[in-house]
């Protein structure tokens, strides 16, 4: 459900499975533990293995963004699938998205 890759104060949390209201609690507890322990300057949420996320995921990301900013850090979200990225854009958090490298000019 959650794998942590630690590179000093840059942490990557690779989430997997579905993120909804039911599962958000567990992700929240696990991520808060990582944040409290590592006080990351950058927390990267890798959603590459997340097959589904609704707006419960926005609550999850926003809450962790607050927690990370309290310890002076930032959050980035990478590998979000199309619809998940769309939910994130709708929430106004698109500045957190690491967009995949563009191959075509636009």
């Amino acid at each position, binding site marked *: 459900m959650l794998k942590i890759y630690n590179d000093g104060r840059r942490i990557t949390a690779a989430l997997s499975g579905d993120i909804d209201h039911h599962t958000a609690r567990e992700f929240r507890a696990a991520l808060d533990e990582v944040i409290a322990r590592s006080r990351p300057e950058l927390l990267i949420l890798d959603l590459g293995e997340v097959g589904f996320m609704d*707006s419960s995921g926005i*609550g999850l990301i*926003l809450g962790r963004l607050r927690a990370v900013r309290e310890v002076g850090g930032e959050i980035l979200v990478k590998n979000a699938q199309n619809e998940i990225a*769309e939910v994130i854009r709708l929430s106004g958090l698109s500045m957190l998205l690491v967009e995949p490298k563009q191959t075509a000019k636009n």
Partner: protein
Amino acid sequence: MRKELINQCAVRFPALSRNESLSRSAAASFALQCDPTVEEIAAIKTAVSEAVTNAIVHGYRDCEGMVEMTMKLYGDNTLYIQIKDKGRGIPNVKEAMQPAFTTAPADEERSGLGFTVMESFMDKVRVRSTEGRGTCVTLEKRLRKKGDDD
């Protein structure tokens, strides 16, 4: 002209958070007969998940109850999914549908974006609600048929 009803299905389940995934899988399974795209399936699952979560988190906030989901497919490839609860209802639907509006306590970390997401992913979202009686959300989406113009 009345649209021809091709198929329908109803699912009833208790308002437990574990049933959020069940409801969206059921909706995705029903939609499969329309030969949907991956994007259409993802859109339907996301919208259904939002509506069902609302019923569980808000409709039945202080009580237990059942959520009923009815799915209908019409001949023009339009899908209607109705999510109904007999919970406490929404006093002001217009206000509830505003982005970032939520009545949930802050520690529950609800974003208030449920209706925004439903409206973004579906063609139409209709909400009927009576305080003390419950809420009925109808999601409508016309799926592309092979041969439709882009």
